């Protein structure tokens, strides 16, 4: 109700403006209750106005009438409780895709977002099928699609984010250049289908390009540590949403295949050539949009998972360390083992990052921080053992692109975790503020991006396209 209500009947109104102010305040107060929606607030306001008019007619001054009427309405707590009993669904925050009728301003904005997202998702789905015009099939030409896959989806996500953030021209130019560079890296070197470099590019190009998406994400304030932390949160939530969408997509695919087969049509070609590639690239854009749309609606999932798994991973790593000491067994450094330990460090870093991202920087150190320090330190000890084994092996047999990449990643993660452990120790002993740890992590992000680009651009020529 935007128009001030016209008082019924000629009230001698000493200061109708003051009364309207009071109504406005009351309205504001009521609207903060999740149980009471806009329509309820308007209905209650009408009730309140009816009550005020009657009291004024009975001879009260407007401000007195307002006070009495509000008092009669009863406490808002009780009122909200009664409303909640009837409208319990309102306490479950719902994701409103197109804003709803509640607030036209945000409604318009989220509708525009939705349209932009659909445009980008459709663009991604179309672009992933474009190479087919040049005779490249998604199933047959794995050597083309594998390294290029991220190029069909991440530019669209970056475009959506840049549009949403109204990124500057210079930054858009930089992002276009980086995506072009990625396309060059994926296609300029002629790599054999079974070469290690092809696998490395397939793994590292998406990482490098994800940081270009990050550039779009933080485009409103490139240097800000807070925005970079937001990007870390965005990454985690995006991943969670993508996995959920993928699970749903799996169910959809299973039903599609099953039902069509039941009537004698084999949809496998459709699924593998259309549904799967288009679905995946579009899902990345949709996941990014969902995170943006719901960031204040639903509790972040990644930190919750972190809380659950930090103690479990700590226990597992400590048990592993004890087992090594107990059996005095060396670590058998095969290629798989090296990658496994790299991934372990990534998981530990993820646990660290997402608990940092959800932590109140001003809270004093607690038990969970000590647990986390134990996790990081045990991961460090294990990693030093692994590094020891692998350098021995490299000096013995010479190196390959795979080993060099794994080793480089190991060193990067080790450096990060070692300094993190030091900062955490300082924090637990109340020597360094928590913000130092946060800044260290956000400041380290370009290192990952830089390394991914090195692997993608320099490794193939460095190792003679092995």
């Amino acid at each position: 109700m935007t128009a001030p209500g016209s008082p019924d009947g000629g009230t001698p109104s000493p200061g109708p403006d003051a009364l309207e102010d009071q109504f406005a305040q009351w309205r504001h107060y009521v609207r903060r209750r999740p149980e009471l929606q806009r329509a309820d607030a308007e209905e209650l306001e009408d009730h309140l106005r009816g009550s005020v008019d009657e009291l004024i007619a009975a001879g009260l001054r407007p401000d007195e009438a307002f006070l009495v009427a509000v008092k009669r309405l009863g406490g808002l707590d009780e009122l909200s409780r009664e409303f909640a009993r009837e409208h319990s669904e309102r306490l479950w925050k719902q994701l409103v895709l197109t804003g709803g009728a509640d607030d036209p301003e945000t409604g318009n904005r989220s509708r525009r977002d939705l349209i932009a997202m659909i445009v980008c998702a459709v663009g991604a789905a179309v672009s992933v099928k474009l190479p087919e015009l040049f005779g490249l099939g998604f199933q047959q030409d794995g050597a083309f699609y594998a390294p290029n896959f991220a190029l069909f989806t991440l530019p669209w996500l970056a475009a959506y984010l840049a549009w949403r953030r109204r990124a500057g021209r210079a930054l858009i130019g930089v992002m276009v250049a980086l995506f072009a560079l990625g396309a060059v890296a994926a296609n300029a070197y002629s790599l054999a289908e079974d070469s290690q470099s092809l696998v490395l590019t397939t793994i590292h190009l998406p990482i490098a390009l994800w940081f270009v998406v990050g550039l779009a994400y933080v485009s409103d304030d490139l240097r800000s540590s807070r925005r970079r932390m937001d990007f870390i949160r965005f990454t985690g939530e995006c991943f969670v949403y993508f996995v959920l969408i993928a699970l749903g997509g799996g169910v959809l695919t299973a039903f599609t295949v099953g039902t069509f087969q039941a009537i004698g049509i084999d949809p496998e070609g459709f699924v593998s050539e259309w549904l799967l590639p288009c679905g995946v690239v579009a899902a990345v854009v949709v996941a990014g949009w969902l995170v943006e749309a719901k960031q204040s609606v639903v509790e972040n999932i990644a930190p919750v998972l972190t809380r659950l798994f930090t103690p479990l991973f700590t226990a597992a790593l400590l048990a592993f360390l004890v087992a090594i000491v107990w059996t005095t067994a060396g670590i058998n450094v095969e290629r798989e083992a090296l990658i496994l330990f790299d991934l372990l460090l990534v998981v530990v870093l993820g646990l660290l990052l997402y608990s940092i991202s959800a932590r109140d920087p001003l809270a004093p150190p607690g038990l969970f921080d000590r647990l986390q320090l134990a996790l990081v330190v045990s991961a460090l000890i294990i990693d030093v053992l692994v590094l020891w084994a692998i350098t021995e092996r490299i000096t013995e047999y010479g190196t390959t692109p795979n080993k060099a990449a794994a080793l480089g990643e190991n060193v990067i993660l080790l450096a990060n975790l070692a300094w993190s452990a030091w900062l955490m120790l300082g924090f637990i002993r109340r020597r360094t503020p928590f913000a130092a740890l946060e800044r260290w992590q956000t400041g380290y992000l370009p290192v990952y991006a830089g390394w991914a680009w090195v692997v993608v651009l320099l490794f193939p020529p460095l190792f003679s396209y092995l």
Partner: protein
Amino acid sequence: MKVTKDLVAASATPMVLGILADGESYGYAILRRINELSDGELDWTEGLLYPLLHRLERLGHVESSWQSVPGERRRKYYRITDSGLAELAEQRRQWDTVVSALKAIWVDPGDVRRSTTIPLGGLA
């Protein structure tokens, strides 16, 4: 004398439906009408009335619409539906049963003792 909360809650639905059966109305007017009818003895609150109206709407017993009557504010009016009328008839039947049973028990104050001793006698 104030009517207890449980009794107010139990009689709320037939009362609101009954008032709306006379013609469409809005929250404040319904509350005033109940006040008039009970001489202020029924302690209705807004926290009772509005959620009840919303529930009746969800169940399809009433319909609501925002209307602007000339010279008055825009208001949310409630109107009873056919299913609401059916519900009202059903509630009336139940309340008639309860009321007539109570009346039969309370024929006159002198009979109170008799009505409590008879079942005991039957048991013995």
